[in-house]
Structure formats: C-alpha cells, structure tokens
C-alpha cells in the first residue's frame, strides 16, 4: 500500500500546485476597480453624512 500512499501524496501536491498557481496570478484590474468603486461610494456616503 506504499504505492497507494505515494499516489495520495502526489495527488495532494498536484491539487495544491493547481490552487497555488491561481493564487500566484496577479489580481486582474477588474477586482481592483471593484474595490475602488466601493471606496468611492463609501467616500460619497462619508461626505453626505
């Protein structure tokens, strides 16, 4: 069953790698724009209060 355990370890590493590959990608501008928009609407609210 050593082979089976090695296989499970390998699968785990591969899953982790796929996930981490996405984590390492630069965040697309869309996301930053979204947060900026949130910021602006927040600023408006701040100003009106």
């Amino acid at each position, binding site marked *: 069953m050593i082979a*089976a355990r*090695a*296989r499970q370890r390998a699968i785990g590493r591969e*899953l*982790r790698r796929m*996930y981490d590959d996405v984590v390492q990608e630069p*965040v*697309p501008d869309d*996301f930053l724009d979204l*947060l900026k928009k949130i910021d602006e609407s927040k600023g408006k609210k701040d100003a009106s209060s």
Partner: protein
Amino acid sequence: MGAGGEATADSGGPPPSDREFQRDLLELIPFLRAFSRSLCGDRELADDLAQEALAKAWQSRNTFRAGSNLKAWLFTILRNQFYSDRRRAWRQAPWDDSAAERMPVARGEQTWAVQLSDTARALRGLPAEQREALILVGAGGFSYEDAAKISNCAVGTVKSRVARARKALSATLEGNGPLPSEPRPAGSDATNEIMAQLDRLAPFDPTQAGQRSSGKTDPT
C-alpha cells in the same frame, strides 16, 4: 457593550473598521479566485463569480463577526453564489462532464486547466461537492471543521466527501476509473512517470492528515 453603545449608534458614516475590512478583502482576492476557479473550472466565469462574491461580501460586511475567519466567511459567500442559481453560466460548462468538449483548454496560459494534468482531468470528473471538499481541505488548507462550515454540512460529510474524492482520483489515475476527455497513454509506466513527476513538485502534503474514513456513508 450595553448602555455605553449609544455614542456610536448614530454617527452616520461607516464604522472605522471599513478600511481595514477592505484591505483584508483585497488580500484574500487571490485565494477567492483560486477557490472560484476550482468550482467553475473556467477562468472568466470564475472571476465573474469571485467579483460578485466580493461585492456581496462588502454589502454584508456588517454581518461578519470580527475575529472570526474572514477567508472562510468569504468562501462561504462565493460558494452560496455558485450554488444559488443553477441557471448561471458558472454552474454549467467546463467542469460539467457533459460539457467536457467545451472545456477551454487552449484559451491561454491562465486557464486553470491548461497543461491539463491527469489530476486536473480526474478532478473534473468528480461531483462538485466532492471536488469542493477536496480543494478546501487538500489545497486550501482548511480544517475539516471550517470546510464543513463553508459547505454548510456536517464535518463527517466533508470527511466522507474528501475520502471518496481521493479514492476516485486515485482510481482514475491508476486507470481503474474513467478519465474525462483527452485520452492518455495507458499502462503503468506512464502512470509511474507521472507520479515521479508529481513527487518532484512542492513538498506540501495535505493528504497526511490521517483520515481513513472511506466506507462511511454520506448523509447528503
């Protein structure tokens, strides 16, 4: 708490922690994207879903309990968005086995499934709940307890899903299970070579958590 809370109750603007909350969200975007892609399979759909979840998280920020796990909270929102409407595009297509033909394999380097490894393809053949559980625990580093909260199910259910997912992936990679699309050379030599390659990858090992819960039934 109690009577002294009056002073901040009607001060109008957002609570002072908003900026901090926003910063925390910003830091979690990469992880949110990774989880989203593991659910959707497709980069663009996944990013749409992640943005929707991010906006929802901001709107619901007052329901977040300070000090609790923001990442788990965020993932829960994304997951609920994913399952809430079956008609949405991200619920269909790429991971869906019947839609394997439409898998955007060659769209660009950024696609989750580019260089589609055997593991990635085997992952695609799993039921969404199993894939989700396996990603949360096996790749996202969540405890079974947190994964159960995110997936809104019992801890035992998560364990069972993870165990079955691992078993299915293993069987597929061994050649005992169906591998969705892209036939690969059969035979143990090829498998051994792949395993040898995988062994040279990052030394992280989330599968060693010591669960041997196969055979348990999944209550869902």
